[in-house]
């Protein structure tokens, strides 16, 4: 019984607390409900319209712009990269080609130089040979003529000696024959 009384007391105070606006919850006082509803709807409509019509499109456009810009920049960077790679490749090819050219030129000049040297050497050798040949010929001729002149001299000497010793003059042709005979016998010694 006592418990029931307490419960009723609590409930009744709660009731008055809840539904009497003066002491309890001002939220449940319907006096300004219409006013709050009116202002809420009015202000929220203003907010919604300005957000939907002005601000969100602006933010969205800006975000899209930024995304596009980033994408464009990235594309450009990629393009640049491929371009530079291409240039590098071209440069490498040029380098390779010029290296080949250099070796080719080097080889060519070496070859021509060698050939030149060989040619000069050949012609030089030929000339030397010719000179040697000439000199030999000359020597031979000189020898021949020297033998003749020796023969003549020895003839003269022999006839002079014989004349002085015997006082006679021998016939020249017999002296010549003797000298020639002796020189023929002994010429091997001097040649």
């Amino acid at each position: 019984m006592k418990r029931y009384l307490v419960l009723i007391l609590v409930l009744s105070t709660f009731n008055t607390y809840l539904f009497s606006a003066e002491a309890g919850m001002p939220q449940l006082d319907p006096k300004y409900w219409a006013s709050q509803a009116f202002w809420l709807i009015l202000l929220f409509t203003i907010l919604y319209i300005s957000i939907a019509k002005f601000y969100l499109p602006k933010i969205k456009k800006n975000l899209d712009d930024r995304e596009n810009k980033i994408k464009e920049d990235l594309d450009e960077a990629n393009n640049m990269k491929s371009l530079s790679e291409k240039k590098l490749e071209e440069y490498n090819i040029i380098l390779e080609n010029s290296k080949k050219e250099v070796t080719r030129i080097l080889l060519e000049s070496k070859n021509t130089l060698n050939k030149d040297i060989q040619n000069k050497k050949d012609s030089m050798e030929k000339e030397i040979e010719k000179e040697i040949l000439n000199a030999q010929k000359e020597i031979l001729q000189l020898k021949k003529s020297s033998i003749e002149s020796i023969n003549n001299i020895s003839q003269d000497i022999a006839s002079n000696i014989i004349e002085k010793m015997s006082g006679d003059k021998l016939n020249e042709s017999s002296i010549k024959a003797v000298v020639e005979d002796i020189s023929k016998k002994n010429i091997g010694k001097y040649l």
Partner: protein
Amino acid sequence: MASNPMQQFSVHKIGPEIKIAGIDLSFTNASLFMVVSVASILLFLFLGTKERKIIPDKIQLIAELVYNFVAKMISDTAGSKAKPYFPFIFSLFMFVLLCNMVGMLPYAFTVTSHIIVTLIMALFIFIAVTIIGFIKHGFKYLSIFIPSGVPVVLLPLITVIEIISYLSRPVSLSVRLFANMMAGHTMLKVFGGFVISLGMLGGWLPLSFSVALTGLEILVAFLQAYVFAILTCIYLNDALNLHH
């Protein structure tokens, strides 16, 4: 008692009485703080979109972060079909968030601590979602009351439960926000009263509680705005994508 914790929720008229067709539509302190919240949102968005730079400054960055936050919330819960309702969800989130946050300022009035305000928003969402559902799916929309994979024996019971839960959506949505706001602010006020009544000697304990509660209430203010917006998204998802 001057420090009646419910005093802070009382509405009073500011300026002249406005009566249209016998209905009192006077400008009140509640209306004033609604104006403050809406004006803050519009000012923030104005500053956030004034200079559209490629590299944003701080306020522009915040505006873009909020935009992305709400956009992600919608696309995660309601999918791409909910895109046309993005401005509404965004406005709703910002409005509830700013009303809650403005209410945290000393001497400020918390607009969302009034059941009539939250109920109107919740009822609007409920009715709009129901209309969208019927427009998109016709009478097939009623199939959300019949979950798939339920034994036939249980079907009448489940359907009744589903209908009740569907109809209680506006109530739960509005009461959740209103009750959270009211309870938090009442508690802050009660602890504030304790600080005064216990004086210099004993007032430190409730003061530290009060400080901690203020932090908690700021969290709750954000969280309730988020919950309000995300539940709207979920209801919208039910109406747009009929899964059952």
